């Protein structure tokens, strides 16, 4: 039975990775999860210098989901390369580095810095809804997305995955803009922009007012967008959004995803990734599927 997938020329032992920002660089979750079992670890978004992120509260629970407005707090690329990469290198797992920036220049600084670092792939976050200075514009305007894709590609020697925002009218158009810009893959969905109000205090629950909605509540939107995006382009797709169990992950694979990221589920069950990998194996056994690749996009 084969679970390994080839994504943009890189072989991962199985299609399951974690969603950026929900797993740090894996250190904390290594108490619960054998990182060797993961197809890859996708790390928290990293910028060219340390970011403070947003004021607190940064987290709010919603019905079947949650809002976060962490605001891409990160220690900067230097610390990341010196501390987090060596940690991950101890394990037999893929490494996908999620990159964020306030400006095109900042993206370029990070990806150039990573050219000499032994990681498998880059995931470019052009869709974080919590960064006011930029990010979101790259993620919602096809022209800007196309441009930043070209730029990143021209400065990087790694496969580049563009991470798309779901807060757009036409996800297929965004997928094509990334593909035309030379992206080696796309990943989606990032969080849907949401808001929560404390009715008793008549105040916003999050200091940032808006936050990104994640968790099982958004899963049907993720399935739809993965389906639409993967049918719009030839490059492979990493699907994510509300994956809680093997069934949810398989939905995204059947919709067209080659790999699947598990995000919010880690908070609810720190073993979620392992349970999902085991569940996919069981499903394949039960249904006589020898190769996971036979399931990619196999919905009728």
């Amino acid at each position, binding site marked *: 039975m084969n679970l390994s997938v080839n994504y943009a020329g890189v072989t991962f032992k199985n299609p399951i990775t974690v969603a950026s920002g929900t797993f740090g660089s894996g250190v904390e979750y290594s108490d*619960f999860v054998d990182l060797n079992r993961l197809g890859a670890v996708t790390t928290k978004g990293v910028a060219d210098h340390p970011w403070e992120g947003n004021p607190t509260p940064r987290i709010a629970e919603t019905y*079947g989901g949650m809002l976060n407005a962490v605001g891409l707090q990160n220690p900067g690329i230097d610390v990341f390369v010196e501390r987090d990469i060596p940690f991950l290198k101890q394990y037999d797992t893929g490494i996908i580095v999620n990159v964020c920036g306030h400006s095109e220049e900042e993206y370029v600084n990070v990806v150039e810095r990573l050219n000499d670092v032994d990681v498998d792939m880059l995931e470019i976050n052009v869709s974080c809804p919590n960064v006011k200075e930029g990010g979101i514009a790259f993620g919602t305007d096809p022209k800007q997305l196309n441009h930043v894709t070209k730029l990143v590609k021209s400065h990087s020697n790694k496969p580049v995955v563009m991470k798309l925002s779901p807060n757009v009218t036409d996800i297929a158009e965004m997928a094509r803009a990334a593909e035309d810009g030379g992206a080696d893959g796309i990943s989606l969905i990032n969080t849907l922009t949401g808001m929560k109000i404390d009715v008793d205090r008549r105040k916003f629950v999050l200091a940032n007012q808006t936050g990104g909605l994640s968790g099982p509540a958004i899963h049907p939107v993720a399935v739809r967008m993965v389906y639409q995006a993967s049918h719009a382009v030839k490059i492979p797709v990493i699907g994510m959004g509300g994956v809680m169990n093997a069934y949810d992950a398989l939905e995204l694979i059947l919709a067209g995803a080659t790999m699947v990221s598990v995000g919010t589920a880690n908070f609810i069950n720190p073993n979620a990734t392992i349970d999902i990998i085991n569940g996919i194996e069981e499903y394949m056994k039960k249904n006589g599927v020898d190769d996971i690749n036979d399931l990619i996009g196999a919905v009728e």
Partner: protein
Amino acid sequence: MSKSLVEGTIISNEPISSDCYSMFISAADIANAAVPGQFINVYINDGSKLLPRPISICEIVDDKVRIVFRAVGGGTKELATYKAGEVIRVMGPLGNGYPLEQDKSYMLIGGGIGIPPLLELSKRLKGDINIVLGYRDEIFLADEFNKYGKVYIASEDGNTGVKGNVIDAINEYGISADIIYSCGPTPMLRGLKAYGAEHNIKTYLSLEERMACGIGACLGCVTKSTDVDSHSHVNNKRVCKDGPVFEASEVDL
């Protein structure tokens, strides 16, 4: 690997005030590893509520952990309905806990639902233990502290002890100590930080923040730190992992 995620059996769940409950959960792995001031993540069975509820460990008794919680919102109200014999998922022990500096004089200062974690602490300390408990109105848990130290009470309504807050009680009774261990609402902690600085008393504060992962991965629960933090490389510390207990001078409340 000292943290565990376990299915804990509820041994008992009893109201101890109009809205506070005391629950014993059988969870040997957590009980064996825990120290005072740490907390556990309690998962609510209802699937619409995803995030775990962080609740301080109030006591550790053999292979059981005790929590005392106030039913304030949907999650804790549901928790209040769980019966002995039911099983809940809990993860812990989480956070750092109070550093135990032995053979000193102490003030253990708790406000409202910040009182519970001080109970296990009061059992573990050796020295001169003064326990200052602040309530809005209804008193709970206070009698259980008696055997571990001298208890002083403040209540906002003045029905029990000093009318006012914990600082009013400290002043009224002229309590002093080498070390303050505290837990409670932010305004109280802010007051204690100032009080400790003024009186040159080493002060530990246990903070609260909205959390998602509870183990330091998501950066949801940070508090402003005075200096650049060695992990985050910015002026943020994670309450769930670097805390919930901080030396007052470390954090900028």
